[in-house]
Structures are given as structure tokens and as C-alpha cells.
């Protein structure tokens, strides 16, 4: 169902080739190749400690891989000029695993910060934009003056998402976006991302353990296991793979339940 919202564009927004990562003696990634196409939602799954966050940080130019290259929007992140990197950075939005809100700024100022940094918008416009972002993630305006320490964990996640969306990015990186949200909120998160894909032609790279979200959103899934990508492909193909991790992850009891929903949906509207 998600495939029809991808209007043809298949040139990669993220291109990882031959990536190796080592921390001291421990190898985390051993030769990873991954393309994220324009307009698609790529789900990144893997066991805890398999290096998903690390891979995400390398796609964000926060960490340098041992070997290999990471290109985003066709720009080699680890070998380009500063100005180029700045340009790329203004085109993506990032939601960190723990929100990473600025603790000294209110909710409103957290979201307004990237807008103000542009030094082009006036306060009235910023006000409209901040409120629309807040509304998108389902935060009432009455919370806008609160400080991050006065928020619940799920609210921090949603405000982090609102901040990631502040500049209307073309590419969104999400680290565990639905962890800490109640099922209802997870549902509206899925809906929001689907709507944004239509409105803004968003591409998304999403690390998640939440099978329901994965099934509902991801066009393709990349499975990170034993330092490599075990498989990259539509979730149905990936689940058919004969591998212990895949079996446990997708075809455990929880996985089967989520996949059942997928089967049902496909019966109703075949792709």
C-alpha cells in the first residue's frame, strides 16, 4: 500500500558502499552496502547492539566509518567541503533515540530554533510554523511553554519529531520513533508519516523494533545481523528468509500477529 505513494523516483538519497566500522578491536560493521531510494521508507532492524544507531550516526556525519563511503543526496559526507555538508544538513531532519531536546529551551523555542537559525523568517511566521508542527505531532498549544524536564517521555519523542520536521526536510532519520508511545500515539505517528510522505515527498530512514510500525510504514526493510546486512527488501520477502534472527524477529508470536495484519490488508487491496 505504501508503494503507490512513491511516485517513480528511484535515485538513491542515501548511498552506503563498503562500510566498515570498528571500535578498537570490536568490529561492528563489516562491509555494508545500502541504498535508500527517494520517497521510500527504509526500516532498519537488528538485534540490540547490532550497530543500528552507529550506522545512523554515520549517515548523519556524526561518526566516520573505518572504511567505505556514505553519500547523502549524492554528497560524500566524509570527504566533502564544509559548505556542502552544511547544505545537506539543512535538508534532513533527525529524531534521536532519546529526543535530545535542548534542556534550557522551552518546547516552543526548541522547535523555533532551527527556523530562527535561518535568519530569514519573521516571528509571526515562525509562530505559525511552530504551532502547525506541534499540531502535527499531536501536542496541544498549552504545552508550548513547558521546559523539556516537565514533559513525559512520549511527549519528548513527539516534540523531537516536531523539531526534526521544523525545516520541512526531504529526508528524515528516526531512531526508535515509536518506543515510549502508547499504541494510539504510535498509530497516529504512522498516519502522520504517511501524510507527510504525500505532502512533502519525504524519504525516511527508520530504526525500529516495533513490528506494527514497520509493517505499516516501511517499503523496504534492511536487517542488520552479524556485522552485515542480512537482507534488504520488502518486508514480505525478508520474512521468508531462513535465518535464525529473521525467524525469531519476524516469525515469533508478536511478528506473526503483525504480519497477519499485513496479509489482511493485502487481501483487501492487492499491490
Amino acid at each position: 500500500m505504501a508503494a503507490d505513494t512513491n511516485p517513480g523516483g528511484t535515485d538513491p538519497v542515501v548511498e552506503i558502499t563498503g562500510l566498515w566500522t570498528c571500535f578498537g578491536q570490536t568490529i561492528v560493521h563489516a562491509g555494508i552496502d545500502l541504498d535508500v531510494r527517494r520517497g521510500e521508507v527504509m526500516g532498519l532492524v537488528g538485534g540490540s547492539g547490532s550497530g543500528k544507531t552507529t550506522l545512523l550516526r554515520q549517515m548523519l556525519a556524526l561518526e566516520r566509518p573505518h572504511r567505505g563511503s556514505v553519500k547523502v543526496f549524492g554528497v560524500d559526507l566524509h570527504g566533502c567541503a564544509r559548505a556542502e555538508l552544511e547544505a545537506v544538513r539543512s535538508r534532513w531532519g533527525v529524531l534521536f533515540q532519546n529526543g535530545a531536546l535542548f534542556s534550557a529551551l522551552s518546547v516552543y523555542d526548541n522547535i523555533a530554533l532551527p527556523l530562527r537559525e535561518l535568519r530569514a523568517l519573521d516571528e509571526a511566521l515562525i509562530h505559525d510554523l511552530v504551532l502547525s508542527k506541534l499540531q502535527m505531532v499531536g501536542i496541544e498549544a498549552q504545552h508550548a511553554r513547558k521546559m523539556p524536564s516537565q514533559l513525559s517521555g512520549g511527549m519528548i519523542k513527539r516534540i523531537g519529531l516536531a523539531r526534526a520536521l521544523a525545516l520541512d526536510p526531504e529526508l528524515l532519520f528516526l531512531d526508535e520513533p515509536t518506543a515510549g508511545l502508547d499504541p494510539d500515539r504510535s498509530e497516529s505517528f504512522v498516519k502522520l508519516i504517511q501524510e507527510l510522505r504525500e505532502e512533502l515527498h519525504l524519504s525516511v530512514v527508520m530504526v525500529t523494533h516495533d513490528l506494527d510500525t514497520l509493517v505499516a510504514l516501511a517499503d523496504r526493510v534492511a536487517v542488520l545481523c552479524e556485522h552485515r546486512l542480512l537482507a534488504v527488501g520488502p518486508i514480505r520477502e525478508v520474512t521468508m528468509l531462513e535465518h535464525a534472527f529473521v525467524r525469531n524477529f519476524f516469525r515469533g508470536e508478536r511478528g506473526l500477529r503483525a504480519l497477519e495484519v499485513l496479509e489482511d490488508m493485502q487481501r483487501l487491496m492487492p499491490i
Partner: protein
Amino acid sequence: MSGAVPAAAPSLSESTDQRGRRLVQVEGCWKLQRLAPELQHIDERLGRIARGGEARWDLQGIEAIDHAGAALLRRAWLQAGSPEVLTRPEHEPLFRRIEAARASPLPSARKRLPPWLVPGVWVLHVLGHLHGFVVLVGLVAMDIARALARPWKAPWREISANLYRTGAQALAITALVGFLIGVVLSFLSSNQLKLFGADLFIVNILGVSIIRELGPVLAAILVAGRSGSSMTAQLGVMRVTQELDAMSVMGIPQMYRLVMPKVVALAIGLPLLILWTDAVALLGGMVAAQAELGLSMLFFIDTLPAVVPIANLYLGIGKGVVFGVLIALLACHYGLRIRPNTESLGAGTTSSVVTAITMVILVDAVFAVLFRDVGLGF
């Protein structure tokens, strides 16, 4: 339409349609990244068009748009007085979103206090600090009593770690500063004394001033800046990262494990540091005296006990204990009051150091008055 920033520039054009009405045509890419460089110019044009009065707005030529572009355009046509607007169907949800957001009001920013209340708030603030400090002193005193009652259960490990960090690791910096001050003081005094032919009094001057005043105050100020700030920051970061909460729920008493060891460590460490600083500063003084007056070091060491009563040393060390306790208590007091955000962390650390240094100098003055009859009898 691909998501890349398209080349088509945002454009606005005015014309008149067949029925003689104004028509505003909007075309190109209205995404924030594309708009930002020329936003001021575009905004001015939009304003001018809007002030021109009612018109039909045709937004069907827009290739790509995001929330910022939609908000900008929407503001302009509203300013012109709700005219007719034509949009592409796929852009409609964007405009609806902006519209919905405007409907929900933002709570007003916190009100500023009326000026006549400011002194009152300030007094309450100071009283709050005093109250907190007194409570802290009481708690630490009780913890020390508890540790003395059952010394085998006292947090010796923490005390020794703090002693190492605040004492042993400060040896180099106190030595450097002490030595230089000793040299400078000795050099300047020797010059003056030479004028009066009172060369020998250099021993008295250096001995009394360094042992009684300079050594203790120098070491205390260095320790306040070095260890006081780190103690405050440590407690503050533990608050920000919820480590203090984690300790609480595990039933680990914060005061007993975090505050009391710091106080005890500085109460032991600072007097020792003062002894060290005294020694190095006197060494610096001796070196300069030998160079300037030709006074031999042996003579200096020989004369020192005769002309500087030992009470001065006791006084200096006694001050050290008081300063140490004071610095640690103030550091912990400010550390525990830090709110879980980075700004409060910065402000708390600054206050801690500034207050500690001020208090050290203040208490030193009190000592000078109280003990004016001690150790100065010639």
C-alpha cells in the same frame, strides 16, 4: 515530482483576467530551503500585492511547496481580505494544516514581576538559600556523627577518592602559584627593606604573611575554583541525567555517599594543601631573598621559628579546615539545587565558585579580627 530542490524559482506575477479582476499568479518552488535566501524580497512583494486589495490568487502553478511556503502565502492572501484562492488538490492538506494551527492559541509567556515586588522576591531567594544551607549543614553533621558511630561502615572509599582528586591532584598548581607568589613578595619586600637596612626582617615578613594569610587564602581560592566547581557540576549532571533519582530509589543515601565524603575530604585535604603551599611559597621567598639580599637559605630556615610564633601555623591550618568545609558545603549546596537543564547547570556552577571565593575572603577577615591577639606578639 522528485524531492530534490527544483530549480524553478518562486515567482509572483500580477495581471488582469478577462473579467477585469486582479489575478495573482504564483509559480515555481515554494519550499523553505529555496525561499530562505531571498525571503525578505519575496515577503516585501507579497505585502505589496496584498495591500493592493482583493484579487484572485492562482496557486496552481506551484510545483512544490512545504509548510513554510504555505504559511507565507496564506498570510498574504488573508491580509488582502479573503479573496478567491485556487490551489492544486494535492497542496490542499498543507494549507489546511496551517489554518488549523492558527486556530489554537499559544499560552502567553510568563509575566514579568512588577518592579515593587523584585526586592521582596530577592529577599525570599536569599532566605531560601540560607534555609537550604542550614539544613545541609545539619544533615552533613548528622552524617558525620553516623560515620563516627560506626566507622567500619563509613564511606572511606569515597572519602579517599575525593581526597586524591581535590588534594593530591592539586599539588602541582598550588606549588606553581605558591612559588611565584613567594618569589614576587620576597623580591618586592627586599627592595624596600634594603632602603632601611632592615634586611633581616624579610624572614618575619615572609613568615607571617605567608603562613598566616597568603598560604591559606591562596590554596583555598585555588581549591574553590578547581574542586568546588567540579563538585557542583558533578551533582548537577547527576541531577540532569537522573542519576540522583536512581540513587534515591535504590535506597542509597545521597548525603551520606555524595556530600559528606566531599566535606570530610576537603576538611582534611585543604589544611594539608595549605602546609604544602606554605612550604613552597617560603622556598620561593628564600630563593628570591638569597638572590636579592644574599641571605643564605640556612640562615632563613634557622631564624624562621624564632621570629614567627608557631601559633601562626596553627591558625593557618585551622583556617584551612574551616575553608575546606565551607567550600565543599557551598559546592554541594549549589549542586543539589540545580534544575535538570543545562542552563541551570552553568549558572549553578558559576554561583558556587563565586560564592565560595567570596566567603573564603570574608571568613578570612573574620578570622583576622577574632585572632588579632594571637601569634603576633613580638
